[in-house]
């Protein structure tokens, strides 16, 4: 059937207009090195120029929202891990925040601090992967291995606190599953944060960010205007790359974030226009530094007390009602809308995932680009298919 559909597309060449040559229909993905997962881009190209770009989704659909209607609130934390599997702690955090809002659950202060620390560690890990694979898309192999080396340290730290290396299932409504371990964990995190700030980020900047070829490839490429960002609902580093100072951690503060002092880096058009691929890249690089700042403050102000509320042993029931909460995951604004009917299972659970909205913009910006630039653009959006297809 697919073939029939494609043949039809070949036959009707209305859109070609004055161009004499045929457009070449090109399937980029679902198995392609530059699509960051099982994304399929249907391209219509003339030589190197892309005339139409349609993302085709659904290859990783796992019915996560529907499953929420069959299992209880605590059990669903596992599925939130699998949303953005590069920053699971942020996704955990997003879900439990919404859950606590609808269930009216009190969270101890210590738990909030621990949550912030692990979520920011997760954010650094996610940004490292984003930058590394972006470099790889641009043909720079070596930064990939350097950044994965640092990510490994984060995974080790998170393993020590949660027991998992990639999917943690660490936060639960009303707290976190385990307290900070007694093996000097806090000091190790501080050491790592200092290392990243003083050594690693300057290293990356020297090696990749300010490389002449890298700048030539990315400056003025894939410029995303603020209007486009608003129209398509782009959030996170993509929105901030276009120069909008918006961050849920500050503007719609949740958890313990209001207590901490941090800046929101925005794209400044350092090597080209504001909102080009390089700006989005650089926003992530600067966010790593800001995350380090937050982690340091959260650890220094870490209060004593319980790390989860006491009545958590029981099954959680949420009173009838609905709640939406939005949090800043590493990819952007991650929102959960939960409708509760008074039982232990959600009546409806809807997720607003940032990558899904960020990806849509490719339809508009991708037109007229070269194939190589399209790869750069997709890389700079930093999408995760687990979150898009859910």
């Amino acid at each position, binding site marked *: 059937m697919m073939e029939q559909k494609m043949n039809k597309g070949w036959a009707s060449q209305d859109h070609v207009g004055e161009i004499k040559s045929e457009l070449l229909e090109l399937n980029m993905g679902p198995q392609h090195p530059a699509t960051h997962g099982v994304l399929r881009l249907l391209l219509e190209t003339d030589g190197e120029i892309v005339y139409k770009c349609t993302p085709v989704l659904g290859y990783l659909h796992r019915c996560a929202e529907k499953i929420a209607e069959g299992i209880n609130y605590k059990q669903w934390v596992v599925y939130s891990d699998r949303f953005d599997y590069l920053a699971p702690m942020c996704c955990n955090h997003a879900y439990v925040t919404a859950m606590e809002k609808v269930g009216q659950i009190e969270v101890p202060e210590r738990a909030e601090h621990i949550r912030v620390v692990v979520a920011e560690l997760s954010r650094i890990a996610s940004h490292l992967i984003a930058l590394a694979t972006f470099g790889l898309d641009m043909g720079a192999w070596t930064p990939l*291995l350097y950044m994965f080396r640092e990510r490994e340290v984060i995974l080790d730290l998170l393993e020590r606190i949660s027991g998992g290396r990639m999917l943690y299932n660490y936060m639960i409504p009303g707290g976190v599953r385990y307290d900070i371990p007694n093996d000097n964990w806090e000091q190790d995190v501080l050491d790592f944060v200092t290392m990243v700030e003083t050594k690693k980020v300057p290293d990356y900047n020297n090696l990749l960010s300010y490389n002449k070829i890298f700048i030539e*490839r990315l400056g003025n490429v894939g410029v995303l205007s603020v209007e486009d960002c608003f129209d398509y609902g782009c959030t996170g580093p993509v929105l901030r790359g276009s120069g909008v100072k918006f961050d849920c951690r500050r503007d719609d503060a949740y958890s313990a974030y209001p207590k901490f002092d941090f800046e929101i880096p925005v794209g400044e058009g350092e090597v080209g226009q504001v909102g080009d691929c390089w700006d989005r890249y650089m926003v992530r690089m600067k966010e790593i530094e800001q995350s380090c700042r937050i982690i340091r403050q959260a650890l220094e102000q870490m209060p004593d007390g319980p790390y989860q509320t006491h009545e958590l042993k029981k099954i959680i029931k949420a009173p009838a009602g609905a709640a939406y909460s939005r949090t800043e995951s590493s990819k952007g604004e991650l929102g959960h809308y939960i409708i509760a009917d008074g039982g232990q299972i959600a009546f409806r659970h809807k997720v607003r995932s940032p990558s899904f909205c960020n990806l849509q913009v490719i339809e508009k910006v991708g037109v007229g680009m070269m194939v190589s630039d399209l790869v750069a653009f997709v890389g700079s959006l930093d999408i995760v298919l687990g979150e898009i297809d859910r």
Partner: protein
Amino acid sequence: MEALIELLRSLPGASGMSDQTAFIAAAASMATIMFMVMALCAIVFTWMERKVAGFIQNRYGPMRTGRWHGVAQAIADMLKILSKEDIIPAEADKGLFIFGPILVLLGSLLAWAAIPWGPNFIAADFDLGLFYIFAVSSMVILGLLMSGWASNNKWALYGAARGAAQMISYEIPLALATIPVVMYVGSLNTTDIVVAQQGGIWNWFVFRNPFLFIAFFLYFIASIAETNRGPFDMPETESELVAGYHTEYTGMRFAFFFLSEYANLFLVALIASMVFLGGWWAPIPGLPNVPWLTFVIKGILMVFLNMWVRWTLPRVRVDQLMHLCWKVMIPLSLLCVIGSGIWMMLSGQAGV
């Protein structure tokens, strides 16, 4: 070649050999040696590339196969590649599909004939040497375009089109950069070029005048593009075109491309050391010197430089690549030719 004929003649029972037979026998043995060298360099350089990449990327690279630092890794790879199924896509143009890799290999193999390994150690010592090398290595483009087209795969076609555009363009600065040297020597004969650089490092052409110094770097950049390696690996660009022109190839046919890539890599490095870096001459005149070993060491150093660049820099875009070639490198190399000529006239070296 003459030395080889003498050697063959001196063998017991071969003294009565006619001139023709001796020539053919010598040519056959030389060709065999060259092919062996080429196969060997693919094995050595795949291992070396992994080790260099590992070194740059803060990891080990192959460590298990062959006990010491994975020295047998390339052999294991070759065995694996030999055992793979040979797939020809159903819609492919079968003849071209088969012929493409052969032509690629042939193009890079033929050029080896004119490489002077030592004073008397050259397969074909003839007056058009350098020109011949550049001419036959252009055949690689044909093979590349052929296999990309025949694969009946859009990615392969993209890779082939990019590859053809890139390699044809970069052949111009590549050849132009060597022209000043040819002007100094007054000959295209490869042996003559090396002989002209006798007498220490300051007689190497790279240091003869500032224009030649620039020409050396132009040559080096163009040679990276000519071998299709990063940051100019447009025909492959694994993050854009999957694997470029060899997307559909498997097994031994794929190995042909692989073999030819590393043979080409060493070839351009050897040309660099032959034309600019004094060929088989040692840097200091009095030094004890094994000609072919010196030559090969210089070549390997150039290959190392190439790998260093590849594993450090990001890739340029295809239009930037063309821009660099036509608007920067070709004018610059023409300038080198003119400047070098003026320099020769002013310093009284012209008018040979």
